[in-house]
C-alpha cells in the first residue's frame, strides 16, 4: 500500500465527516417541508364548525369532519378493546415461557405479523368479517386494525417484562401467591409504563392506517354511530377527498390532514414522555 501524506488523510477524514453530516441532516428537510406544508394548508381550515359539522356537497361552504372524527375514535376504541387484552396476555405468555416450542412459533408469528403489508390485512379482514356479515362495517375495520396493533403491543409487553428482575416474581411466589395474582399484582403494575407506551405507539400507528379500512369500514359521508354499518374515518376521508377533483373537498382534506397529524404527533410525544419519565427501553 502506498504511503499517503498525513494531510491528505486528515483532509479526507474531515471531508467524509462533512458529507455524513450533510446527508444525515438532509433527511430532516423533507420532514420539515411536509410538516410546514400541512400546517400552512390546514391551519386556515380548522375552526369549531370544521370539527362539529359533516362534509357538505361540492359547492356549499362550511363542511366539516365530525363524521370522520367520531368514526376514527370509535374504530380505534374498539380495536384497542380487542387488541390490548390479547396483546398483553400474549406478551406475558412469551416472557414467561422463553424456551417452549409453542413460544418459539408464537414469537415467530408475531414477527411475521409485524411485517405483513396493511393491504393484505384488509383483504383478510374482508373475507373473515365483511363477507360473513354481508356488508362493510366499522367493526370489521376495528378488527383489521386490531390485527395491526397486536404485534406492537405483544413485543413491547414482552420486552418490558423481560427486563424486570426475576427476584421480584420469586419473592411473590415465595410468599405463596398464585401465578395469576403474581402477574396482576406484581408484574403488570411494575411494567405498566412500558406496556402503556407500547399501547400508545400502536394506537399512533393505526390512527393513520388507511389501507385496511378501504375494504372494511369503507367510509360514509354521514355521521354514524352504528358499528355494524360503514363508517368514515380520518385517513379514509383524506384519501377520498384528496384524490377528488374539487377544491372544496381538497381543502377539507388539508384540514383533516392537520388534525390527523396533530393527533399522531401528540400520541408520539406522549409516548416519549412516558418512556423518559419511567426510563423504559423500547
Amino acid at each position: 500500500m502506498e504511503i499517503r501524506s498525513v494531510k491528505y488523510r486528515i483532509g479526507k477524514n474531515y471531508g467524509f465527516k462533512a458529507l455524513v453530516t450533510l446527508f444525515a441532516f438532509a433527511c430532516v428537510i423533507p420532514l420539515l417541508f411536509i410538516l410546514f406544508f400541512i400546517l400552512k394548508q390546514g391551519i386556515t381550515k380548522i375552526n369549531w364548525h370544521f370539527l362539529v359539522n359533516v362534509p357538505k356537497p361540492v359547492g356549499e361552504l362550511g363542511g366539516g369532519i365530525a363524521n370522520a372524527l367520531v368514526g376514527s375514535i370509535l374504530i380505534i376504541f374498539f380495536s384497542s378493546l380487542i387488541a390490548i387484552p390479547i396483546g398483553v396476555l400474549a406478551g406475558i405468555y412469551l416472557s414467561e415461557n422463553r424456551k417452549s416450542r409453542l413460544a418459539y412459533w408464537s414469537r415467530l408469528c408475531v414477527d411475521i405479523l409485524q411485517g405483513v403489508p396493511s393491504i393484505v390485512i384488509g383483504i383478510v379482514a374482508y373475507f373473515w368479517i365483511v363477507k360473513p356479515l354481508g356488508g362493510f362495517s366499522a367493526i370489521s375495520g376495528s378488527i383489521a386494525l386490531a390485527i395491526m396493533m397486536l404485534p406492537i403491543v405483544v413485543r413491547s409487553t414482552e420486552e418490558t417484562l423481560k427486563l424486570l428482575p426475576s427476584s421480584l416474581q420469586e419473592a411473590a411466589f415465595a410468599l405463596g401467591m398464585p401465578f395469576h395474582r403474581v402477574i396482576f399484582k406484581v408484574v403488570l403494575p411494575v411494567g405498566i409504563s412500558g406496556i402503556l407506551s407500547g399501547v400508545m405507539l400502536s394506537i399512533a400507528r393505526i390512527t393513520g392506517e388507511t389501507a385496511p379500512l378501504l375494504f372494511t369500514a369503507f367510509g360514509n359521508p354521514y355521521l354514524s354511530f352504528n358499528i355494524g354499518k360503514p363508517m368514515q374515518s380520518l385517513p379514509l376521508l383524506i384519501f377520498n377527498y384528496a384524490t377528488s377533483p374539487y377544491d372544496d373537498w381538497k381543502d377539507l382534506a388539508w384540514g383533516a390532514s392537520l388534525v390527523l397529524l396533530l393527533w399522531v404527533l401528540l400520541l408520539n410525544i406522549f409516548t416519549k414522555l412516558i418512556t423518559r419519565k419511567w426510563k423504559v427501553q423500547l
Partner: protein
Amino acid sequence: MDTSVKNAGITRSDLPLRVIHSTPEGIAKAKNRIRRSFRQIRTENVFRQTLVIVGLLMVILVLGILLTLVVQSLPSLKTLGPKYLWGKVWDPVQDVYGALPFLVGTLLSSFLALIISIPFSLAVAIWLGEYYPKGWLPNFLKNAVELIAAVPSVIYGFWGLAVLVPIVRNLEIRLGVSPIGQGIFTSSLILAIMIIPYAASLGRSMIQLVPSQLKEAAFGLGATRWEVIRSVVLPYTKSGLFAGILLSLGRALGETMAVTMVIGNTSLMPKNIFAPGNTMASVIANEFTEADKPVYVSALIELGLVLFLVTVVINLIGKKIIDRFTHD
C-alpha cells in the same frame, strides 16, 4: 386464628398442619379456607391455559391469513395457472389477467426508493452511532427520523400529490419525457423518504454494538476516524446494515396508500421510470371493491398472496441476520 384466616388460600400443602377447631364456626371457617384455596388453584390453572391459548392464537392468526389468501386465490391459480405471473396484459374487461406490469412496478419503485434512501439512512446511522451518540443535536436528529416513520402514509401521499407531482412534472418537461408528474419515479421519491427510519435506527444500534477495543486498536495504529469507520465499523456491521436495508425493502414493497396516490394507476407495462404504473398493493387498493368477476377478485388476492409471501421471507431473513448479529 385471625392471621391464619387472613393468610388462608395460599397453598395446598400447609392446610393439614393447621388446627381445625371442632366448634361449628371453626369447621365452617376451615371449609371456607379450603374452598378459597381450591378456587385460587382453579383460577391459576384457567389463567395458565388462557395464556397458552393466546400464544396459540398468534400462530393461528398467521396460518389463518395464509390459508385465507391461498383459498381465495384458488380460482385464479386454477384458471390462470403460473403464467399469470408473467402475463404482460391486464385487462379485466376482456378477462385477460397478467401480473407482470404490477410486479415490475413494485420492484422498480421499491428498488429505486432503496437506492435513493441508502446514502441517507446510512449517514444517519453512522452520524448517530459513531460520530455523535449523545447530546441535544443527536437527540433532535433521532427524534426527527423517528417522526418520519410516525407520519401517516396517506399524508405523505397527499403531500406528494400536491408538491412532488408538479416538481417531477417540471423535471419531466426538462428531460423531454411525457410530463404526467404521477409515476414510478414520484412514488420512489415518497417511498425513499418513508423508509429511511427503518434502516437508520437499526443501523445505528448495530454500529453502537461494535466493540470499542476494535476501534481503539485501529485508532492506536494511527487510523483517522474515516479509516476506522471504513475498515472496522462498516465491515463489522455489514450484515446488520444489510438486515436494516432488507427491512426497509419489506416496508417499501407493502406500502399502499402513498404509492396509490402518486403512481398514476395504469395497468400498462411501465416503459421507463417516469411512466405511470401500478404496484401490487396499489392495484389491490384501487380495484378490489370494483372487481365484479370471481376470477378478477381472485387474481387480485393472488397478488396479495405473493406480496404476503415476499414480505414474510424478507422479514424473516432480516430478523435471522439481526438475531445472529446480536447474539455473537
